[in-house]
């Protein structure tokens, strides 16, 4: 999608009014477009002012007693607040940015995206860079932004599984390149001694593409190179041990 076309969607993006696919395209474009980041900030400033504009004209007033209830509901401060910010923030922020990009790609609801996009500031691009090395970061972004990309949805093999029914994944290839990206989400930590693996099948041959290391949020990503440009996979499966968990097969979606 062209810059001008995406730029025309920034107004709706700032309002959280785009469909998931559109929001995904805008979010990816924003990562690499300072001009659109600046434009979005101006529209976000408008959106942020709407609640105050409403408060200005509304006759409704908050009752003074409510403050006592709010204060009474507070728990003792936890020292982890400051600890988190000082020590874990860089990693968490990088993860948040990546999860943001991922979450738009997952097709989460627009409002969730809006909340997450608040995390997306130009300063955070540097944090993203700390999570992936620059070459890998560019490979991922180029693939996700490519007009030749092909996306496959990996669904739970057992939709009724209480453990995996909410898990899902996506696999991207591109017709004009050999990079392959897989992201999975909402996977529980594997039992000790086990791990998740990605298997892909092409031309009747199944290979183990690599392990998926799930973080504390149930998110994992794997970037690898196919054996040729425009790989024509017919199946992709995430396994736990020998048990298939998530699966996509040609013709299924």
């Amino acid at each position, binding site marked *: 999608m062209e810059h001008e076309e995406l730029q025309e969607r920034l107004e709706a993006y700032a309002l*959280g*009014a785009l469909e998931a696919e559109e929001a995904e395209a805008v979010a990816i474009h924003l990562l690499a477009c300072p001009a659109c980041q600046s434009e979005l900030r*101006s529209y976000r400033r408008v959106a942020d002012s709407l609640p*105050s504009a409403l408060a*200005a004209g509304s006759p409704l007033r908050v009752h003074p007693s*409510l403050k006592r209830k709010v204060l009474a509901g507070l728990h003792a401060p936890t020292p982890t607040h400051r600890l988190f910010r000082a020590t874990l923030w860089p990693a968490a922020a990088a993860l948040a940015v990546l999860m943001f990009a991922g979450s738009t790609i997952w097709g989460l609801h627009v409002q969730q995206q809006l*909340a997450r996009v*608040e995390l997306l500031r130009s300063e955070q691009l540097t944090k993203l860079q700390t999570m992936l090395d620059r070459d890998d970061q560019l490979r991922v972004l180029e693939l996700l932004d490519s007009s030749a990309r092909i996306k496959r949805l990996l669904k739970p093999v057992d939709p009724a599984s209480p453990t995996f029914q909410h898990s899902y994944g996506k696999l991207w290839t591109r017709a004009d390149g050999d990079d392959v990206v897989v992201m999975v989400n909402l996977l529980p930590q594997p039992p000790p001694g086990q791990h998740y693996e990605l298997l892909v099948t092409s031309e009747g041959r199944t290979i183990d593409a690599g392990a998926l290391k799930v973080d504390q949020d149930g998110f994992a990503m794997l970037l690898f190179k196919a054996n040729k440009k425009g790989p024509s996979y017919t199946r992709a499966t995430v396994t736990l041990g020998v048990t298939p968990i998530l699966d996509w097969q040609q013709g299924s979606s």
Partner: protein
Amino acid sequence: MDDEELVERVADGDVGAFSELYDRHAQRVFTWSAHLLGPARAEDAIQEIFLRLWQHAGQFDRGRGTFVSWFTAVVRHHLIHELRREAVRRRLDAAYEIADVLATAPSGELQPDDAATRQETSAAVARAMRLLPEGQRHVIVLAYFAGMSQSQIAEQLALPLGTVKKRVRLGMRKLRAALEPEAMSPIDPAGDPSGRAGASE
């Protein structure tokens, strides 16, 4: 002390700073919540939202933006989530009620604790919202306050999707124009660029 300093103190467990932030922002959050959910549920929402602020203040980073922007996103996420429990009809009614308020909102009666710049910005947006054509005001309210996508708005209003997109674009551009320096200070609708543009779509 600005909001950003206060929220950093909240992250350290400073109840006084939290109390000050509450005083500054509770009215805005309550009005927003009450119009969407009704006054009774708004009280619950306020408690949950400010508790969330207390618990997650450490996640705010001024390097990424203002407190208002961060907190507004937190509030909106919570309210839209709550609103989705309502029937579509109720969501539409709430949005139209908000649109009516914004159509007649005085631009100079913002909460006194708002910082001067923010108050000026909000007053400019309130003024520009009042001057928008009804159709543009409605789509912006349905999107922002009711959490509807452009496609959902088109379906609910029985309008072509292209019309909704155009109204969103034009409306937001007029609101943004109202925040440009030359449009900020005078409270003079006749001289407001958004006012001139408000006569047509």
